[in-house]
C-alpha cells in the first residue's frame, strides 16, 4: 500500500497520528533501538530516522549536537542503513529517512534510493533539496515507489504550495514556523490561516512539525493536521532522563 493511503487508513481510526524523529547513532544505536521500541509500543505511527550530516543547516542546537556527536562517535551511512533495515523488519509502522542531500548525492542517488527501497524504507525528507534541484531524486523516488515528502513553510505562497504539492507524495511536512528545529512554536490565528492554506493546496495528509513538544501542542493540532511531529523533544528527553522515559512521554501525548 502506498504511504499516503496507509496514513489515511490509520488516520481514519485515530484523531491524529504521531510521527517521531531520532538521530541515528545518537547517543548510540543501542539507545536508538530502545527508543524506537518504546515509541512503537506506545502508539507512534511513523518514525523519521535522521542520518547524521556534518552541516545540518536547517536544524537547531539540540539536533546539531546529536548530528555532530553521532558522526564523532563513528556513525557511518552504512551503519544507518543496516540499523534502518533491522528496524523496518522488526516493526510494522512506516520508517522514513530524513537527511541532507549530500548524503544521497555522495552515495549515488539511484543506489541510495534502491537500497532504501530494498530495506523497507517508505520515504524521504530532504530539507535542502527543493524540487527545482531534485529532478533526478523525484524521478527515482517515483520509480522505486518511495515517498518524496515535500515541505511547506509559512513563507510559501499559495502558488508555491501548489507546485510543491505537485511533486509531493506520502504526506506534506508543514513547518510550523520560521527558524530551525527545537524552539517553541506559538499556535495563533496566523498559524490557523497557514494550515488552512496548506489544506487548500493539497489532498495529501498534512504533518506539522517544529516546536511540537507536549500533549497541549498535540491537542491544538488535533482536527487541524493529520500528523503531529515530535522531534527535538524526545532527543532532549533521552538526553536528560534516558531511553526509558520515552514510553510514558509518548503515551501521554494523546
Amino acid at each position, binding site marked *: 500500500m502506498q504511504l499516503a493511503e496507509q496514513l489515511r487508513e490509520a488516520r481514519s481510526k485515530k484523531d491524529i497520528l504521531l510521527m517521531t524523529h531520532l538521530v541515528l547513532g545518537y547517543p548510540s544505536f543501542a539507545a536508538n533501538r530502545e527508543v524506537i521500541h518504546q515509541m512503537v509500543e506506545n502508539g507512534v505511527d511513523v518514525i523519521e530516522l535522521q542520518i547524521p550530516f556534518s*552541516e545540518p543547516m536547517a536544524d537547531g542546537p539540540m539536533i546539531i549536537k546529536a548530528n555532530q556527536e553521532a558522526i564523532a562517535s563513528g556513525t557511518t551511512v552504512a551503519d544507518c542503513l543496516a540499523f534502518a533495515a533491522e528496524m523496518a523488519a522488526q516493526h510494522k509502522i512506516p520508517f522514513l529517512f530524513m537527511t*541532507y542531500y549530500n*548524503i544521497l548525492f*555522495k552515495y549515488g542517488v539511484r543506489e541510495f534510493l534502491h537500497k532504501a527501497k530494498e530495506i523497507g524504507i517508505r520515504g524521504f525528507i530532504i530539507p*535542502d533539496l527543493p524540487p527545482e*534541484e531534485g529532478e533526478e531524486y523525484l524521478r527515482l523516488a517515483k520509480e522505486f515507489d518511495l515517498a518524496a515528502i515535500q515541505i511547506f513553510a*509559512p*513563507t510559501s505562497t499559495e502558488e508555491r504550495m501548489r507546485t510543491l504539492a505537485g511533486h509531493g507524495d506520502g504526506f506534506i511536512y508543514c513547518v510550523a514556523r520560521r527558524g530551525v528545529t527545537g524552539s517553541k512554536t506559538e499556535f495563533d490565528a496566523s498559524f490557523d490561516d497557514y494550515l488552512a492554506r496548506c489544506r487548500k493546496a493539497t489532498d495529501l495528509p498534512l504533518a506539522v512539525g517544529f516546536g511540537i513538544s507536549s500533549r497541549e501542542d498535540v491537542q491544538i493540532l488535533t482536527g487541524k493536521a493529520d500528523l503531529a511531529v515530535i522531534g527535538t523533544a524526545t532527543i532532549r528527553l533521552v538526553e536528560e532522563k534516558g531511553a526509558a522515559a520515552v514510553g510514558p512521554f509518548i503515551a501521554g501525548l494523546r
Partner: protein
Amino acid sequence: MNKPGYFGQWGGAYIPEVLYETFRELREVYAKAKADPAFWQEYVALMSSYSCRPTPLTHADNLSRHFGGAQIFIKREDLNHTGAHKANNVMGQGLLVKRMGKTRVIAETGAGQHGVACATMAAKFGFACTIYMGEEDVHRQRPNVFWMEKLGATVVPVTTGSRTLKDAINEAFRDWVSNMDTTHYVMGTVCGPHPFPEMVAWFQSIIGIEARKQIIASHGKLPARIYACVGGGSNAMGIFQGFLADSEVELIGVEAGGKGIDTGQHAARLASQDASPGVAQGYKTMFLQDSDGQMLDTHSVAAGLDYIGVSPLLTDLWEKGRVRFTAATDQEVMAALDLTIKKEGIIPALESSHAFVQAFKEAGELSSDQAIIINQSGRGDKDIFTIAHAFDDPSWKEFIRKKGEEYATR
C-alpha cells in the same frame, strides 16, 4: 551556464523551503540592479569616495629585480577601506539591502575581514548587524573582533562543528531562516546558493576591470599571468573576471596547502586530490569530505582560507582548464610574507601571501618584458598575532607577556 545559477555542473540553490521567497526577492532585486546602469554608477561612486577606489597597481621593482624575471605588479586591494577586497562586496550588497528595505544584516566571517567590512557597511547605512564567527577564528583574529564590536556589531562565536568558517556559515543561515523579513545575509564570498556566487562575483569584478586598464597603462600590454589566493574565491574571481576573455593571460589560483598536501592538514580543494563533488551550504562544488559526504576539518595558517568548499565559478573554470590551481604551505607563506615586507615595505595578509608564494616560484621562468600581477586581497597587520607567533618573535612575546601581567594585576 546550463540553468540559472549553474556554472557548468556546479552551483545551484539547495535551500530550505522557508527561504524560497527570500531568495526569489534577492534574485529579483539583483537582476534589476544589474540591468540598471545607474546602480553600477552609484556603486563605483560610493567605492571611490568611501573606499579608495580605484586601488593602485604597484610595480614591485625590488622583487622583480630580486627574482630576475617578470615585472611583478601588485593589485592593492589592501588599500580598500577596512583593508581588504571584502569592502567591494559588502558595499554593493548594502546598496541592495537599501533597495529591499531591510534593516538588519548578518554575516559569517573567517579571518574577520568580511566581518569588519560588513560591520562598517552596517554602521554607514544604519543597519543592525550580527556577525557569526567560529570560536577558533575568534581566538585567532581578536583584533578584528574588537573592531567589529566597536563598529556596533554583535559578534557571535560559533561553537558547533570545527568552530571555523563553515560553521559560521551554517549559523548565519539558521539566523536567516528565523529573521528573513527584516534581515539580509551578506554572504562574504562567491559561494553559497544562487544568486550569491554570481552576485558577489559581479561586485568583485571591479578589481579586474581596474587591473586590466592599469596594467595596459603602466606596462603597455596584458600580463602573462595573474595570481590570487583562493579560500571561497572572491578576490580571485574579482581579478580574474577582468581577463577571462584574454586567453593569453594565464590565471592561477593558490589554495591553502597548510602543513602540506600530503598531511591531510590543508584546505586545497582543487590543487589536491582530496576533494570530491558534493552539495553543502546551499550549492554544489568540490568539497573536502569523506566517503560518506561528511565534511572534513581543514587547516591553514590563514583563517580566511581554511574552507571546505570553493566557488562554483572557479570549479567550472578549473574544469574547463581556464584557471590553474596550486597550493602554498604555511611555511612557504611565512617566507614569502617576510620577503615582501623586507623588499617592498608592503605587508600582505596571510591569505594574500599564498598568491605571492606561487608568483615568486614562477617569476624567474618569465622574461623581463613580461608582467605578472599578484592580487593582494588584504592587509597583513590584522594578522599580527599569528604572524608574530609564526616568526617566533621574542620581543613581541615579551610585550604580550607584560600586557598579560598588566591586565592580570589590575
